[in-house]
Protein backbone atom coordinates (compact mmCIF):
# COMPACT_ATOMS: atom_id res chain seq x y z
CA UNK A 1 0.00 0.00 0.00
CA UNK A 2 2.95 2.27 0.70
CA UNK A 3 6.43 2.09 -0.79
CA UNK A 4 9.17 4.52 0.27
CA UNK A 5 12.47 4.62 -1.61
CA UNK A 6 15.65 6.47 -0.69
CA UNK A 7 13.85 9.28 1.10
CA UNK A 8 15.97 12.22 2.23
CA UNK A 9 14.86 15.07 4.42
CA UNK A 10 16.71 17.88 6.13
CA UNK A 11 15.96 21.41 7.21
CA UNK A 12 17.72 24.56 6.08
CA UNK A 13 17.29 27.30 8.67
CA UNK A 14 17.62 30.52 6.71
CA UNK A 15 17.24 32.60 9.85
CA UNK A 16 20.20 30.80 11.47
CA UNK A 17 22.73 31.56 8.77
CA UNK A 18 21.34 28.83 6.53
CA UNK A 19 22.19 26.20 9.11
CA UNK A 20 21.63 22.78 7.60
CA UNK A 21 20.09 20.00 9.70
CA UNK A 22 19.96 16.67 7.89
CA UNK A 23 17.45 14.25 9.45
CA UNK A 24 16.69 11.38 7.07
CA UNK A 25 19.21 9.94 4.63
CA UNK A 26 17.89 7.17 2.44
CA UNK A 27 14.79 5.72 4.12
CA UNK A 28 13.35 2.79 2.16
CA UNK A 29 10.45 0.73 3.40
CA UNK A 30 7.26 -1.04 2.31
CA UNK A 31 4.00 -1.68 4.10
CA UNK A 32 1.34 -4.04 2.80
CA UNK A 33 -2.37 -4.16 3.55
CA UNK A 34 -3.12 -5.63 6.96
CA UNK A 35 0.43 -5.11 8.13
CA UNK A 36 1.80 -2.89 10.90
CA UNK A 37 5.33 -1.49 10.81
CA UNK A 38 6.88 0.09 13.91
CA UNK A 39 9.41 2.92 13.58
CA UNK A 40 12.02 2.41 16.29
CA UNK A 41 15.02 4.37 17.47
CA UNK A 42 15.88 6.91 20.15
CA UNK A 43 14.45 10.45 20.23
CA UNK A 44 15.81 12.70 17.54
CA UNK A 45 16.31 9.98 14.94
CA UNK A 46 13.53 11.42 12.78
CA UNK A 47 10.58 9.11 13.46
CA UNK A 48 8.01 11.91 13.58
CA UNK A 49 9.75 13.73 10.72
CA UNK A 50 9.38 10.59 8.60
CA UNK A 51 5.66 10.30 9.40
CA UNK A 52 5.17 13.98 8.53
CA UNK A 53 6.97 13.47 5.22
CA UNK A 54 4.75 10.48 4.47
CA UNK A 55 1.67 12.61 5.17
CA UNK A 56 2.93 15.42 2.93
CA UNK A 57 3.14 17.77 5.88
CA UNK A 58 6.92 18.04 5.39
CA UNK A 59 8.42 18.40 1.95
CA UNK A 60 10.68 15.51 0.98
CA UNK A 61 13.96 16.52 -0.62
CA UNK A 62 14.83 13.36 -2.48
CA UNK A 63 13.36 9.93 -3.07
CA UNK A 64 9.80 8.75 -3.56
CA UNK A 65 6.75 7.99 -1.41
CA UNK A 66 4.42 5.89 -3.48
CA UNK A 67 0.97 5.23 -2.12
CA UNK A 68 -1.82 3.10 -3.55
CA UNK A 69 -4.61 5.57 -4.31
CA UNK A 70 -7.75 5.13 -6.43
CA UNK A 71 -6.40 1.85 -7.79
CA UNK A 72 -3.06 3.26 -8.96
CA UNK A 73 0.25 4.39 -7.48
CA UNK A 74 0.87 8.04 -6.73
CA UNK A 75 4.20 9.54 -5.63
CA UNK A 76 3.36 11.87 -2.77
CA UNK A 77 6.81 13.43 -2.89
CA UNK A 78 5.96 14.82 -6.33
CA UNK A 79 2.17 15.11 -6.19
CA UNK A 80 0.30 18.39 -6.65
CA UNK A 81 -1.10 19.78 -3.38
CA UNK A 82 -4.62 19.04 -4.60
CA UNK A 83 -3.69 15.39 -5.16
CA UNK A 84 -2.20 15.23 -1.66
CA UNK A 85 -5.49 16.54 -0.26
CA UNK A 86 -7.42 13.87 -2.17
CA UNK A 87 -5.07 11.17 -0.84
CA UNK A 88 -5.63 12.45 2.70
CA UNK A 89 -9.38 12.42 2.19
CA UNK A 90 -9.65 8.95 0.67
CA UNK A 91 -6.52 6.94 1.44
CA UNK A 92 -4.13 8.22 4.05
CA UNK A 93 -4.92 8.97 7.70
CA UNK A 94 -2.62 10.50 10.29
CA UNK A 95 -3.08 10.50 14.04
CA UNK A 96 -0.69 12.87 15.77
CA UNK A 97 -0.06 13.38 19.44
CA UNK A 98 -1.68 16.77 19.35
CA UNK A 99 -5.16 17.84 18.45
CA UNK A 100 -5.68 20.97 16.42
CA UNK A 101 -9.10 22.14 17.50
CA UNK A 102 -11.22 24.49 15.42
CA UNK A 103 -12.91 27.33 17.33
CA UNK A 104 -16.65 26.83 17.82
CA UNK A 105 -16.72 23.34 16.30
CA UNK A 106 -18.12 20.62 18.56
CA UNK A 107 -16.27 17.39 19.25
CA UNK A 108 -18.95 15.41 17.44
CA UNK A 109 -18.71 17.60 14.34
CA UNK A 110 -14.92 17.47 14.44
CA UNK A 111 -14.95 13.67 14.45
CA UNK A 112 -17.65 13.48 11.75
CA UNK A 113 -15.84 15.97 9.50
CA UNK A 114 -13.56 13.56 7.59
CA UNK A 115 -16.65 11.60 6.51
CA UNK A 116 -18.61 14.71 5.54
CA UNK A 117 -15.61 15.87 3.47
CA UNK A 118 -15.88 12.60 1.56
CA UNK A 119 -19.53 13.20 0.82
CA UNK A 120 -21.16 10.99 3.50
CA UNK A 121 -24.58 12.40 4.46
CA UNK A 122 -24.25 14.53 7.62
CA UNK A 123 -26.71 12.39 9.66
CA UNK A 124 -24.85 9.17 8.82
CA UNK A 125 -21.51 10.81 9.58
CA UNK A 126 -22.88 11.99 12.95
CA UNK A 127 -24.17 8.53 13.78
CA UNK A 128 -20.79 6.97 13.03
CA UNK A 129 -19.02 9.69 15.01
CA UNK A 130 -21.29 8.92 17.98
CA UNK A 131 -20.44 5.21 17.72
CA UNK A 132 -16.75 6.00 17.55
CA UNK A 133 -16.80 8.35 20.57
CA UNK A 134 -18.88 5.89 22.57
CA UNK A 135 -16.44 3.14 21.67
CA UNK A 136 -13.54 5.29 22.86
CA UNK A 137 -15.47 5.99 26.05
CA UNK A 138 -15.61 9.75 25.71
CA UNK A 139 -18.45 10.95 28.00
CA UNK A 140 -21.53 11.93 26.02
CA UNK A 141 -21.75 15.23 27.89
CA UNK A 142 -18.56 16.32 26.10
CA UNK A 143 -19.76 15.65 22.55
CA UNK A 144 -21.37 19.05 21.93
CA UNK A 145 -18.35 20.91 23.35
CA UNK A 146 -15.28 21.97 21.32
CA UNK A 147 -12.35 19.88 22.60
CA UNK A 148 -9.91 22.71 23.39
CA UNK A 149 -10.78 22.57 27.09
CA UNK A 150 -10.47 18.77 27.35
CA UNK A 151 -7.77 16.90 29.23
CA UNK A 152 -4.80 15.51 27.30
CA UNK A 153 -6.23 12.00 27.32
CA UNK A 154 -9.65 13.15 26.14
CA UNK A 155 -8.15 15.18 23.30
CA UNK A 156 -6.03 12.22 22.34
CA UNK A 157 -9.11 10.02 22.02
CA UNK A 158 -10.90 12.68 19.94
CA UNK A 159 -7.85 12.60 17.71
CA UNK A 160 -7.96 8.83 17.45
CA UNK A 161 -11.69 8.90 16.71
CA UNK A 162 -11.16 11.45 13.96
CA UNK A 163 -8.28 9.45 12.52
CA UNK A 164 -10.01 6.08 12.50
CA UNK A 165 -13.56 7.04 11.54
CA UNK A 166 -12.80 7.15 7.81
CA UNK A 167 -11.52 3.53 7.79
CA UNK A 168 -8.76 4.65 5.48
CA UNK A 169 -6.51 1.99 3.94
CA UNK A 170 -3.21 3.53 5.12
CA UNK A 171 -2.70 4.90 8.64
CA UNK A 172 0.19 6.83 10.16
CA UNK A 173 0.21 6.81 13.96
CA UNK A 174 2.44 9.08 16.04
CA UNK A 175 2.19 7.77 19.62
CA UNK A 176 -1.58 7.22 19.56
CA UNK A 177 -1.61 6.04 23.18
CA UNK A 178 0.87 8.55 24.60
CA UNK A 179 -1.23 10.36 27.21
CA UNK A 180 -3.73 7.62 28.03
CA UNK A 181 -4.39 5.61 31.19
CA UNK A 182 -4.16 1.78 30.89
CA UNK A 183 -7.88 1.18 30.29
CA UNK A 184 -8.17 3.80 27.58
CA UNK A 185 -4.89 2.66 26.08
CA UNK A 186 -6.34 -0.84 25.75
CA UNK A 187 -9.46 0.48 24.00
CA UNK A 188 -7.42 2.54 21.53
CA UNK A 189 -5.14 -0.42 20.77
CA UNK A 190 -8.17 -2.60 20.21
CA UNK A 191 -9.56 -0.08 17.68
CA UNK A 192 -6.22 0.10 15.86
CA UNK A 193 -6.01 -3.69 15.84
CA UNK A 194 -9.47 -3.81 14.27
CA UNK A 195 -8.42 -1.38 11.56
CA UNK A 196 -5.43 -3.62 10.87
CA UNK A 197 -7.55 -6.76 10.73
CA UNK A 198 -9.86 -4.94 8.33
CA UNK A 199 -6.86 -4.53 6.02
CA UNK A 200 -5.31 -1.18 6.87
CA UNK A 201 -1.58 -0.77 6.30
CA UNK A 202 -0.16 0.92 9.39
CA UNK A 203 3.10 2.70 10.20
CA UNK A 204 3.43 3.79 13.78
CA UNK A 205 5.60 5.16 16.55
CA UNK A 206 4.93 3.45 19.86
CA UNK A 207 7.14 4.13 22.84
CA UNK A 208 5.05 1.67 24.79
CA UNK A 209 6.80 -1.62 23.99
CA UNK A 210 3.83 -3.76 25.05
CA UNK A 211 1.61 -1.90 22.59
CA UNK A 212 4.25 -2.21 19.90
CA UNK A 213 4.67 -5.94 20.41
CA UNK A 214 0.94 -6.54 20.41
CA UNK A 215 0.28 -4.62 17.21
CA UNK A 216 3.33 -4.61 15.00
CA UNK A 217 4.61 -7.30 12.66
CA UNK A 218 7.95 -5.70 11.85
CA UNK A 219 10.14 -2.83 12.95
CA UNK A 220 12.12 -0.29 10.93
CA UNK A 221 15.21 0.87 12.75
CA UNK A 222 15.61 4.60 12.14
CA UNK A 223 19.33 4.58 12.98
CA UNK A 224 19.81 2.76 9.65
CA UNK A 225 19.00 5.93 7.74
CA UNK A 226 20.91 8.49 9.80
CA UNK A 227 22.81 11.14 7.91
CA UNK A 228 26.58 10.76 8.39
CA UNK A 229 26.98 14.13 10.07
CA UNK A 230 24.65 12.98 12.84
CA UNK A 231 26.02 9.49 13.33
CA UNK A 232 27.69 8.62 16.60
Amino acid at each position, binding site marked *: MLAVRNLHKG*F*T*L*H*LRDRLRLPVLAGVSLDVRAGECLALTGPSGTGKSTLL*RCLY*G*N*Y*RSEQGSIRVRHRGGWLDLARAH*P*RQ*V*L*AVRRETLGYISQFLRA*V*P*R*VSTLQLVAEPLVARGVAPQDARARAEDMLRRLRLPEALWPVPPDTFSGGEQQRVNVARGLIGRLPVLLLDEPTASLDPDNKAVVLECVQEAKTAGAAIIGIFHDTAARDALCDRAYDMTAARPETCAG
Partner: protein
Amino acid sequence: MSDAPLLEAEAVTCRFGRVTACRDIDVAVHAGEILGIVGESGAGKSTLLRCLAGVVRPASGTVTYTDAGGREHPLHALEDSALRRLARTDWGFVHQHPHDGLRPHLSAGANVAEPLLRCGETRYGRIRTAARHWLEQVELDPVRMDDRVRTFSGGMQQRVQLARNLVTEPRLLFLDEPTGGLDVSVQARLLDLIRQLVARLQVAVVLVTHDLAAVRLLAHRLVVMQQGGIVEQGLTDQVLDDPQHAYSQLLVASELRC
Protein backbone atom coordinates in the same frame (compact mmCIF):
# COMPACT_ATOMS: atom_id res chain seq x y z
CA MET B 1 -13.00 19.64 -6.37
CA SER B 2 -12.86 19.26 -10.11
CA ASP B 3 -9.61 19.52 -11.96
CA ALA B 4 -10.10 22.37 -14.41
CA PRO B 5 -9.31 25.67 -12.73
CA LEU B 6 -12.11 28.18 -12.30
CA LEU B 7 -9.70 31.06 -12.48
CA GLU B 8 -6.17 31.02 -13.79
CA ALA B 9 -3.58 33.78 -13.85
CA GLU B 10 -0.60 33.36 -16.13
CA ALA B 11 2.52 35.53 -15.98
CA VAL B 12 0.59 38.46 -14.51
CA THR B 13 2.50 41.65 -13.86
CA CYS B 14 0.84 44.81 -12.49
CA ARG B 15 2.49 48.22 -12.45
CA PHE B 16 1.47 51.52 -10.95
CA GLY B 17 3.63 54.10 -12.73
CA ARG B 18 7.16 52.93 -12.14
CA VAL B 19 6.26 50.66 -9.23
CA THR B 20 5.80 46.98 -10.00
CA ALA B 21 3.13 45.82 -7.54
CA CYS B 22 3.16 42.20 -8.63
CA ARG B 23 5.50 40.42 -10.91
CA ASP B 24 5.12 37.38 -13.15
CA ILE B 25 2.44 35.66 -11.10
CA ASP B 26 1.10 32.20 -12.00
CA VAL B 27 -1.76 31.05 -9.84
CA ALA B 28 -4.92 28.96 -10.25
CA VAL B 29 -8.10 28.52 -8.20
CA HIS B 30 -10.32 25.46 -8.52
CA ALA B 31 -13.99 24.95 -7.70
CA GLY B 32 -14.70 24.54 -4.00
CA GLU B 33 -11.13 25.41 -3.06
CA ILE B 34 -9.84 28.09 -0.70
CA LEU B 35 -6.57 29.66 -1.79
CA GLY B 36 -4.80 31.81 0.81
CA ILE B 37 -2.41 34.62 -0.08
CA VAL B 38 -0.12 35.86 2.69
CA GLY B 39 2.82 38.24 2.89
CA GLU B 40 3.81 41.54 4.44
CA SER B 41 2.06 44.83 3.71
CA GLY B 42 3.09 46.10 0.31
CA ALA B 43 3.92 42.61 -0.97
CA GLY B 44 1.28 43.01 -3.69
CA LYS B 45 -1.40 40.75 -2.24
CA SER B 46 -4.34 43.12 -2.63
CA THR B 47 -3.20 44.24 -6.06
CA LEU B 48 -3.04 40.63 -7.18
CA LEU B 49 -6.50 40.01 -5.74
CA ARG B 50 -7.95 43.00 -7.57
CA CYS B 51 -6.25 41.89 -10.74
CA LEU B 52 -7.73 38.38 -10.39
CA ALA B 53 -11.14 39.96 -9.88
CA GLY B 54 -10.77 42.05 -13.03
CA VAL B 55 -10.66 45.35 -11.16
CA VAL B 56 -7.04 46.20 -11.92
CA ARG B 57 -5.73 45.66 -15.43
CA PRO B 58 -2.30 43.96 -15.56
CA ALA B 59 0.56 45.43 -17.59
CA SER B 60 1.11 41.96 -19.01
CA GLY B 61 -0.15 38.41 -18.56
CA THR B 62 -3.66 36.94 -18.65
CA VAL B 63 -6.40 36.05 -16.19
CA THR B 64 -8.88 33.48 -17.49
CA TYR B 65 -12.20 32.67 -15.87
CA THR B 66 -14.11 29.51 -16.84
CA ASP B 67 -17.87 29.83 -16.32
CA ALA B 68 -20.32 27.10 -15.25
CA GLY B 69 -20.91 26.22 -18.90
CA GLY B 70 -17.18 25.64 -19.44
CA ARG B 71 -16.67 28.82 -21.48
CA GLU B 72 -13.42 30.65 -20.99
CA HIS B 73 -13.38 34.40 -20.47
CA PRO B 74 -10.07 36.26 -20.73
CA LEU B 75 -10.95 38.87 -18.10
CA HIS B 76 -8.78 41.70 -19.20
CA ALA B 77 -9.70 41.39 -22.86
CA LEU B 78 -13.45 41.60 -22.16
CA GLU B 79 -15.66 44.61 -22.81
CA ASP B 80 -16.36 46.50 -19.57
CA SER B 81 -20.03 45.56 -19.70
CA ALA B 82 -19.27 41.84 -20.06
CA LEU B 83 -16.80 42.00 -17.19
CA ARG B 84 -19.31 43.83 -14.97
CA ARG B 85 -21.94 41.22 -15.80
CA LEU B 86 -19.63 38.38 -14.74
CA ALA B 87 -18.62 40.21 -11.58
CA ARG B 88 -22.30 40.66 -10.74
CA THR B 89 -23.43 37.09 -11.30
CA ASP B 90 -20.41 34.83 -10.84
CA TRP B 91 -18.32 36.31 -8.07
CA GLY B 92 -18.30 38.40 -4.94
CA PHE B 93 -15.72 40.72 -3.41
CA VAL B 94 -15.54 41.31 0.33
CA HIS B 95 -13.50 44.40 1.18
CA GLN B 96 -11.39 44.90 4.28
CA HIS B 97 -13.39 47.99 5.24
CA PRO B 98 -17.14 47.42 5.30
CA HIS B 99 -17.76 50.97 4.06
CA ASP B 100 -16.01 50.08 0.78
CA GLY B 101 -18.41 47.22 0.18
CA LEU B 102 -21.64 48.47 1.74
CA ARG B 103 -23.99 51.42 1.46
CA PRO B 104 -23.99 52.64 5.05
CA HIS B 105 -27.08 54.82 4.75
CA LEU B 106 -29.21 51.90 3.52
CA SER B 107 -30.74 49.19 5.68
CA ALA B 108 -29.10 45.79 6.14
CA GLY B 109 -31.90 44.20 4.12
CA ALA B 110 -31.47 46.67 1.27
CA ASN B 111 -27.72 46.09 1.23
CA VAL B 112 -28.23 42.36 0.87
CA ALA B 113 -31.06 42.76 -1.65
CA GLU B 114 -29.32 45.21 -3.96
CA PRO B 115 -27.15 42.68 -5.84
CA LEU B 116 -30.28 40.65 -6.61
CA LEU B 117 -31.99 43.75 -8.01
CA ARG B 118 -28.94 44.35 -10.17
CA CYS B 119 -29.21 40.80 -11.45
CA GLY B 120 -32.73 41.57 -12.61
CA GLU B 121 -34.87 40.14 -9.81
CA THR B 122 -37.99 42.30 -9.48
CA ARG B 123 -40.37 40.39 -7.21
CA TYR B 124 -40.38 42.21 -3.89
CA GLY B 125 -41.48 39.20 -1.82
CA ARG B 126 -38.73 37.04 -3.22
CA ILE B 127 -36.07 39.70 -2.65
CA ARG B 128 -37.20 40.23 0.93
CA THR B 129 -37.19 36.48 1.64
CA ALA B 130 -33.71 36.11 0.17
CA ALA B 131 -32.36 39.03 2.20
CA ARG B 132 -33.82 37.56 5.38
CA HIS B 133 -32.42 34.12 4.55
CA TRP B 134 -28.89 35.40 3.96
CA LEU B 135 -28.90 37.57 7.06
CA GLU B 136 -29.77 34.45 9.00
CA GLN B 137 -27.02 32.51 7.25
CA VAL B 138 -24.46 35.00 8.57
CA GLU B 139 -26.02 34.76 12.02
CA LEU B 140 -27.64 38.20 12.09
CA ASP B 141 -31.04 38.65 13.66
CA PRO B 142 -33.52 39.47 10.85
CA VAL B 143 -35.31 41.74 13.35
CA ARG B 144 -32.63 44.26 12.47
CA MET B 145 -32.95 43.98 8.71
CA ASP B 146 -34.59 47.39 8.39
CA ASP B 147 -31.94 49.17 10.48
CA ARG B 148 -29.30 51.18 8.67
CA VAL B 149 -25.99 49.31 8.54
CA ARG B 150 -24.07 52.30 9.84
CA THR B 151 -25.69 51.62 13.22
CA PHE B 152 -24.12 48.13 13.23
CA SER B 153 -20.82 47.12 14.86
CA GLY B 154 -17.79 46.42 12.68
CA GLY B 155 -18.17 42.66 12.96
CA MET B 156 -21.86 42.85 12.09
CA GLN B 157 -21.17 45.10 9.11
CA GLN B 158 -18.63 42.58 7.89
CA ARG B 159 -21.27 39.85 8.12
CA VAL B 160 -23.74 42.01 6.18
CA GLN B 161 -21.04 42.42 3.54
CA LEU B 162 -20.60 38.66 3.41
CA ALA B 163 -24.37 38.15 3.03
CA ARG B 164 -24.49 40.79 0.29
CA ASN B 165 -21.82 38.86 -1.59
CA LEU B 166 -23.42 35.46 -1.15
CA VAL B 167 -27.01 36.37 -2.07
CA THR B 168 -26.35 35.91 -5.79
CA GLU B 169 -24.83 32.48 -5.04
CA PRO B 170 -21.49 33.21 -6.72
CA ARG B 171 -19.02 30.54 -7.79
CA LEU B 172 -16.05 32.55 -6.65
CA LEU B 173 -15.47 34.84 -3.69
CA PHE B 174 -12.61 37.29 -3.21
CA LEU B 175 -11.86 38.18 0.41
CA ASP B 176 -9.48 41.06 1.13
CA GLU B 177 -8.43 40.97 4.79
CA PRO B 178 -12.01 40.21 5.84
CA THR B 179 -11.15 40.16 9.55
CA GLY B 180 -8.82 43.18 9.38
CA GLY B 181 -10.21 45.66 11.88
CA LEU B 182 -12.13 43.26 14.10
CA ASP B 183 -11.42 42.18 17.65
CA VAL B 184 -10.25 38.63 18.18
CA SER B 185 -13.48 36.95 19.32
CA VAL B 186 -15.37 38.54 16.43
CA GLN B 187 -12.62 37.41 14.04
CA ALA B 188 -12.94 33.81 15.19
CA ARG B 189 -16.68 33.88 14.65
CA LEU B 190 -16.40 35.40 11.19
CA LEU B 191 -13.68 32.94 10.15
CA ASP B 192 -15.71 29.99 11.32
CA LEU B 193 -18.74 31.36 9.50
CA ILE B 194 -16.75 31.71 6.29
CA ARG B 195 -15.40 28.18 6.75
CA GLN B 196 -18.85 26.66 7.16
CA LEU B 197 -20.55 28.64 4.40
CA VAL B 198 -17.79 27.93 1.92
CA ALA B 199 -17.94 24.20 2.65
CA ARG B 200 -21.72 24.16 2.40
CA LEU B 201 -22.01 26.30 -0.74
CA GLN B 202 -18.92 24.83 -2.45
CA VAL B 203 -17.80 28.29 -3.51
CA ALA B 204 -14.16 28.87 -4.45
CA VAL B 205 -12.36 31.53 -2.41
CA VAL B 206 -9.26 33.64 -2.80
CA LEU B 207 -8.37 34.95 0.66
CA VAL B 208 -5.82 37.68 1.24
CA THR B 209 -4.75 38.08 4.85
CA HIS B 210 -1.96 38.74 7.33
CA ASP B 211 -3.37 36.18 9.68
CA LEU B 212 -1.56 32.82 9.51
CA ALA B 213 -3.97 31.21 11.98
CA ALA B 214 -6.83 32.18 9.66
CA VAL B 215 -5.21 30.58 6.63
CA ARG B 216 -4.38 27.46 8.58
CA LEU B 217 -8.03 27.18 9.48
CA LEU B 218 -9.45 28.04 6.09
CA ALA B 219 -7.09 27.62 3.17
CA HIS B 220 -6.38 24.41 1.29
CA ARG B 221 -3.44 25.92 -0.51
CA LEU B 222 -1.24 28.85 0.32
CA VAL B 223 0.73 31.41 -1.66
CA VAL B 224 3.47 33.43 0.06
CA MET B 225 4.30 36.78 -1.54
CA GLN B 226 7.20 39.13 -0.99
CA GLN B 227 7.99 42.31 -2.90
CA GLY B 228 5.50 41.57 -5.63
CA GLY B 229 6.54 38.00 -6.36
CA ILE B 230 5.49 34.54 -5.19
CA VAL B 231 8.32 33.10 -3.12
CA GLU B 232 6.58 29.86 -2.21
CA GLN B 233 3.28 28.08 -2.74
CA GLY B 234 1.89 24.71 -1.75
CA LEU B 235 -0.28 22.81 0.67
CA THR B 236 -1.17 25.15 3.54
CA ASP B 237 0.03 22.96 6.39
CA GLN B 238 3.24 22.14 4.51
CA VAL B 239 4.10 25.78 3.84
CA LEU B 240 3.39 26.70 7.48
CA ASP B 241 5.05 23.68 9.13
CA ASP B 242 7.99 23.25 6.75
CA PRO B 243 8.55 26.60 5.04
CA GLN B 244 11.35 26.43 2.47
CA HIS B 245 12.01 30.04 1.53
CA ALA B 246 13.86 32.41 3.85
CA TYR B 247 10.96 34.87 3.85
CA SER B 248 8.33 32.18 4.60
CA GLN B 249 10.48 30.98 7.49
CA LEU B 250 10.67 34.52 8.83
CA LEU B 251 6.91 34.94 8.47
CA VAL B 252 6.12 31.71 10.33
CA ALA B 253 8.76 32.33 13.00
CA SER B 254 7.34 35.80 13.65
CA GLU B 255 3.85 34.52 14.33
CA LEU B 256 2.85 34.26 17.97
CA ARG B 257 1.78 30.76 18.93
CA CYS B 258 -1.25 30.35 21.11
